[in-house]
């Protein structure tokens, strides 16, 4: 619909919209997070939910204790290799549409523990991460900014054609394989269909 016509109609007291806008408005306005935290980032997440920062302004204050009722997984903290299968299983148990925020350096890349023996080098090896929030830990403002960005992302999704959300794609995977414990690392070490890092070009290779 033409924006000028729409603006003119609204001045006359006629509200027009599209099904897509209405649908996305409903989806983005009550993104309920899953109530779980893994490390110190969770403390900032809790602070964001309290009265000072008040995540309720974005319709996301209802932290659900069950994955069956949650729309958003905030991976807040260090994902150890021992914990990673449980995180993936929780994600699989969430109903579509669902989103993942990797909050903080550890959830993004392993952070200061990246080269250690017991920490996963980023949750995006196993889960389709929608949004990365850098910081160690990120401030509650950063989390709120992340939720606003996620709302923008949801609002911009078309319901048909390319770029439609995953729950409207019939052939998109409904769940992701849960890694198993190996003698040193998780097997497989990453989900190849999800995790495709850019190839590293070495400048001084002989």
């Amino acid at each position, binding site marked *: 619909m033409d924006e000028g016509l729409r603006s003119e109609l609204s001045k006359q007291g006629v509200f027009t919209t599209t099904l897509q806008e209405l649908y996305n408005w409903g989806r983005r306005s009550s993104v309920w997070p899953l109530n779980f935290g893994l490390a110190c980032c969770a403390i900032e997440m809790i602070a964001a939910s309290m009265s000072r920062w008040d995540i309720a302004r974005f319709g996301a204050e209802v932290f659900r204790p069950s994955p069956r009722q949650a729309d958003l997984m905030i991976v807040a903290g260090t994902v150890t290799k021992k914990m990673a299968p449980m995180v993936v299983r929780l994600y699989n148990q969430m109903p579509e549409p669902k989103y993942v925020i990797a909050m903080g350096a550890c959830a993004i890349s392993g952070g200061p523990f*990246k*080269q250690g023996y*017991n920490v996963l080098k980023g949750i995006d090896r196993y889960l389709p991460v929608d949004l990365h929030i850098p910081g160690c830990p990120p401030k509650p403002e950063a989390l709120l900014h992340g939720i606003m960005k996620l709302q923008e992302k949801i609002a911009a999704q078309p319901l048909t054609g390319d770029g439609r959300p995953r729950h409207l794609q019939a052939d998109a995977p409904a769940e992701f394989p849960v890694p198993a414990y190996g*003698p040193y690392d998780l097997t497989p070490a990453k989900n190849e269909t999800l995790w495709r890092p850019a190839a590293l070009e*070495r400048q*001084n290779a*002989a």
Partner: protein
Amino acid sequence: METLEQIAARIAAAVPGVAASVETNPAVRAQSSLVVGRDHALAVARFLRDEPGLQFDYCSNVTGVDWLDATLKEKVRVKRVVDGAEQEFEETVERRRPGYLEAAYHLYSMALRHGPLILRQRTANRVEDTRLASLTPIWRSAEFQEREAFDLFGIVFTGHPDLRRILMWDGFADFPMRKDYVEPDDYEYEPTPHDAVLEKARRHYPVEGAA
């Protein structure tokens, strides 16, 4: 609190057949400790807890230490006859010390408000015989920490009620806190590697390391 020597003497008097030696710490803090053999550790621990003058009723910390095989250098004074006259010389003697694993317990008394007393047990060696006596029957707070020492150092505590790995998963192959632990090469790119990570980066990219 009494000195460690006094406590060691009391242990020798009270628990028959037990020798608890005092390991002095030459550092400034001089936190010396009591070393007991694993066969007598349980009896010594029970004595330390139940003796009215000591009453170490709180075990705050249990940890492991890995001592590799080492060559210790000691200076000794030797008397030698040179040109008919006896003279003193200082000589350096090298001594091989086989490696061992060690469990250290930090004990306090809540009742008498003293501590810490550091109690140590040592295994026979690092590879085959890594058994020590569990002190969980004496101090319940040692249970999880002994499991941690088992998990990361491979010290087997006999008499422990539930000796499983606690931080790593069951089926993990190695003991990561041992000094000779070699982790698999799973290095990933970092923009500014330094120190130990730089070493890993050099091993991972041998071409760049040579350049």
